């Protein structure tokens, strides 16, 4: 593999260490992070792509950088921090996560009205039903049960399917394929087949919504495009659906399993939560902060030279904003490695920051709130079915998580 050009400000004599690192404990930073935090802005080489890029770790530095108009989220730049050698379509078929400026604003707005706090609140009764149905199904089987597959993966998939207007008789199709893609028990061929089938269905779904528009996100996005007079293609709709499906599924599923494991591993905190249902809202924020599953998922490129954190990031250089490091800033979160549910605030960078802040943040918060309220209320004796240290983790994955979560009661 030929390394790409190094950042211009780099010391080209010494190759920087390879990245990403392993966490070890899912609720701790990799052992390499404290030294990076000391420097705030430093350099690494991405293992899979050979790209030399900058990492930024400071809470305030990241917030500053992610609101800086000289920073781009476009995948088109040569040094965009891909973790692998990206096929050309990865640079173009992105939807709004990979757009800048006006193109980003216009495209994101086609979906954003579904995800405002006010709209998300209306979904509470339905999400409660979905969570209850999945708990019912788990309770109907004999423990142990893999909570990740029986609950964490299907619950958010059902929610996002409903929002996108996917007919009910197709939900099992998406749950099955979503699990094939993310569940860790499938072969490369099975995963490829799942991608092909899901993509074919999304194409069909777009045609279906053109013929029979409904009250769903996809129909509304089409109507908004028509009303705005902007040019758009089926690819734009396809990419938006795939983005929302990916963003609304794996992330929430990972957070449900990791947060549940974290509560079970911190019984004093779990007891507080059981005793005080009001604690669930700050608990959601604290568990998002502790896990920061998107630690390595905030890539950017400098459009101009940017002086920050005592370094000059040169025009064209790739940047990763490491939210897990920022969420361990002791000035912002005293004793940052401790899980203290009652202190949870929205200050953390678990959903990113700036114009690309997670569009589904309020939906995720509501799903997690309902999940952790109901799970421990309805299964108060829930516990791990094997030692936490033996549960396999997705080390090095762009969205961190667990491969399984065996539980019993």
């Amino acid at each position, binding site marked *: 593999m030929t390394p790409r050009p190094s950042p211009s400000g780099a010391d080209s004599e010494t190759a920087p260490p390879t990245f990403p690192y392993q966490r070890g404990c899912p609720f701790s930073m990799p052992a390499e992070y404290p030294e990076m935090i000391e420097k705030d802005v430093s350099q690494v080489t991405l293992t899979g792509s050979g790209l030399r890029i900058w990492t930024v770790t400071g809470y305030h530095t990241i*917030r500053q950088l*992610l*609101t800086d*108009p000289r920073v781009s989220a476009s995948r088109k730049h040569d040094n965009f921090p891909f973790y692998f050698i990206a096929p050309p379509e990865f640079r173009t078929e992105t939807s709004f996560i990979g757009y800048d400026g006006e193109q980003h604003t216009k495209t*994101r*707005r086609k979906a*954003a*009205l579904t*995800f*405002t*706090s*006010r*709209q998300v609140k209306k979904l509470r009764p339905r999400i409660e039903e979905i969570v209850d149905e999945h708990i019912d199904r788990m309770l109907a089987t004999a423990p142990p049960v893999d909570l990740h597959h029986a609950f964490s993966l299907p619950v958010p998939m059902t929610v996002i399917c409903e929002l996108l207007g996917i007919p009910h008789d197709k939900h099992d199709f998406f749950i099955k394929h979503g699990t094939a893609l993310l569940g860790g028990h499938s072969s490369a061929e099975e995963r490829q087949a799942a991608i092909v089938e899901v993509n074919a269905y999304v194409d069909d779904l777009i045609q279906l919504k053109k013929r029979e528009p409904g009250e769903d996100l996809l129909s509304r996005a089409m109507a908004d495009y028509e009303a705005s007079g902007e040019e758009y293609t089926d690819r734009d709709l396809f990419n938006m659906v795939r983005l929302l499906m990916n963003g609304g599924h794996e992330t929430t599923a990972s957070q449900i399993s990791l947060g549940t494991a974290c509560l079970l591993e911190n019984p004093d905190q779990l007891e507080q939560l059981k005793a005080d249902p009001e604690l669930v809202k700050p608990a959601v924020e604290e568990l998002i902060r502790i896990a920061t599953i998107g630690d390595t998922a905030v890539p950017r490129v400098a459009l101009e030279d940017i002086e920050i954190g005592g370094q000059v990031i040169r025009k064209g250089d790739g940047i990763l904003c490491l939210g897990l490091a920022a969420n361990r800033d002791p000035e912002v979160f005293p004793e940052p490695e401790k899980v203290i549910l009652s202190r949870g605030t*929205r*200050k953390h960078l678990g*959903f*990113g*920051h*700036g*114009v*690309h*802040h997670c*569009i589904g*943040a*309020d939906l995720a918060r509501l799903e997690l709130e309902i999940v952790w309220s109901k799970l421990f209320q309805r299964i108060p004796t829930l516990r791990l079915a094997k030692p936490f240290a033996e549960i396999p983790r997705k080390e090095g994955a762009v969205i961190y998580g667990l491969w399984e979560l065996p539980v019993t009661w």
Partner: protein
Amino acid sequence: MPKITYRSPDGTDTVVDVASPCTVMRGAKLHNIDGIEAQCGGSAQCGTCHVYVDDANTLPLPPMHEVEDDVLYGTASPRRETSRLSCQLPVTDAMDGLLVHLPEAQS
């Protein structure tokens, strides 16, 4: 460079030069003005960069998109006729002299 005035609830004015491209929200954050939280950082999502544009304002402001309108229903301080999310107000030269009032609370 356009000057923007941020008036706090106790009547104190802070006047800052805001270089384009920048929003009224970012102008406040860059100058450490209390009273703008901007938890989400400018994606019209959290409603914590709420401002009241001065009643007497005649300077041109961009129209409100329905996403901003929806978020403004959930702000910590009550919504008024003049409410805007400051992250949705990109500063232009024509906005030189804009006065915005900061609300009592953002969250």
